[in-house]
């Protein structure tokens, strides 16, 4: 039996939903996967409608656009290890575009 973890994700499509809600997905726990890897698994295998900022993500902690709330604390999805069940939410105080994508994920200092 392969171990799995529960990934609880905030969902909100402003074009359809009146308010946000949470959805839980079961993801195989492979040692050393990041939160981004877990969301990729959900997107590719369980629900292709899930939105998280990755179309231009660097996956190396440099672009900082995958910053979300992970278990209530801000963290980069690509640099946070999955070690057990977790909750992923959009950054607070930012307008949600869809699900975990917010209007401006990070600001450059230039």
């Amino acid at each position: 039996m392969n171990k799995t973890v529960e990934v609880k994700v905030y969902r909100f499509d402003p074009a359809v939903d009146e308010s946000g809600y949470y959805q839980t997905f079961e993801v195989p726990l492979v040692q050393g996967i990041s939160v981004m890897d877990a969301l990729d698994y959900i997107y590719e295998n369980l629900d292709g409608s899930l939105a998280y900022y990755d179309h231009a993500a660097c996956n190396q902690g440099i672009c900082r656009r995958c910053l979300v709330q992970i278990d209530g604390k801000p963290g980069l999805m690509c640099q946070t290890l999955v070690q057990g069940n977790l909750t992923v939410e959009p950054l607070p105080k930012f307008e949600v575009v869809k699900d975990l994508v917010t209007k401006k994920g990070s600001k450059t200092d230039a």
Partner: protein
Amino acid sequence: MYNVETDVLIVGGGGAGFRAAIGAREKRTTATLVSKGPLARSGASPMAGADLTVHGRGMRMAGFFGEPRDSEEKFFSDIVHHGCFLNDQRLVEIYVHDGPDRLMETLAWGCKPNFCDERAVFTSGTGIMDAHLRQAKRVGVDLLEDIAILDLFVEDGQVVGALGIDIHTGEFITFHSKAVVLATGGWHKAYTPVTGSKELTGDGVAMAYRAGAAVGNMEFVTFACNVPLWPPIWRGSIVTYVMSMLCGGTLVNGKGERFLEQYDPEVVSTASKTEWNKSFFSNVAAREVRAGKGTPHGGVYYVVGDTPWEVFHANAMRSYPNWQFKGVDFSEMGRMLRDGEGIEVGGAAEYFEGGVCVDESFATAVPGLYAAGECAISLFGANRVAAATMEMLVSGAIAGWAAAEYAQSTTFPAPSSSQVKELQQKVERPLHQTKGPLPGQLRKRLQLEAYEKLGPVRNEEELKVLLGFLTEAQRDELPKLSTTSKGRLYNKEWLESLELENMLLVIELSARSALERTESRGVHYREDHPDTDNDQWLREVVMKEKVGAPAANTRPVKQTSLDLPTGKIPYLEMVKQMMAAHSDVGGHH
């Protein structure tokens, strides 16, 4: 839907795009830069190490140490030898000549140098990008981010704009321009693992090809060596690549054998200390894996080897204080290395030598269309050596100036409404279709196929299998792709299905070129044609659309002052000769 009018439209938010946009403003035209990702954090540029390479005298002009015995001629010769003579020598001359100007302005715009060697100023990719972002704002470039450009509008054979979508809202944007500069980088996302970011899907190369431009040298792909393959969170990081240069260490295969010992010690030693490392180590590591001697995740092990741990550790701490690299904690990696556990490493797609064919002003053969940076055919020929960060600035500036001059001389034909409508309908297809293949899954299969069959080592049989896969995917799956969500807001599957058309196309062009080139040269190694054939193959493979399918042709390389070698010799013998021909200038390049 809304419209944007501009003189010069620049597609791509990395270094080439920014420098082109600044260049257009320097010639006093309006310039709009469209970035697919975040401004100054998009593409491969911010991920670069990064160094800016110029010849030693140029270094001294800019106030750095530099090697006084160096010259434009020596740097030129070294680049052409590294490129195994497949370089367009006209473009190499421009690179060598313009480098010092691009270096000095980058510093003047606020980029901070860290240290330098004989031929390079080391800074950071983010530092280079921030400096160019500031300058672009200062000179009044219109900047747009998180917008994907999907295709070019062509009227009477002239490029007159492009269709884009705002990735957040899904809204169409029609760009109407007198000239377009493509600066969209490589097609990293068609592979895994990679060292570039995910928006790099070959968009510029694919759009130029569809607009009638020729593409060339598509078979050449540089793989960064010694990149972690496992655990997944480290995949694609250049941490071990940099470590192998600064701290030493060696490679062993999955059976625990030190396989580097079977190669010429001089070649191994030169490769360990210079930019030859990428082509050599990625190649020999892939050979071990293909011989069934790989690690569980398809690589080889990077280990400390004969270097005493104290020495290795001290070197590591100088560059990675507390095992921190670019803000990421690698202390677990430090523990593994100390305890003699190998790190599984291998090649990761990093730089694409191939691209849109351009002349000395970085103009394509299609009026109004320019290409700069990695999406243009590389001046580095068959193997990249000196910095691509300098290539992007040199080519970006010239493309921006040339596009602006062209824009000043041309009229402003608008894209026809039928063309706009037709393209929008095609783009919207995945939103209307149901029960088709899922874009994320097709992309994943493409990545695995490309890495396996169009990696550092190729052969005819596998390339043909890959082409079979691509043909089927293009015929049976691509037209039927459908999205789970039918909404337009940040619809990942919708964007991916549009990117897939480009990725399948550029991998096809690359595989066809690789099949065409029946020799081994630079980063293209054919195990069924293991010699470098200077008599037959000092030619570029160029592809152009002909009645709906790519037609391959070859053309001689453009030569200026350096005579081409002759004869057919084993691949590693050619590498050794090219290494031996390096000038007396030291340093990494």
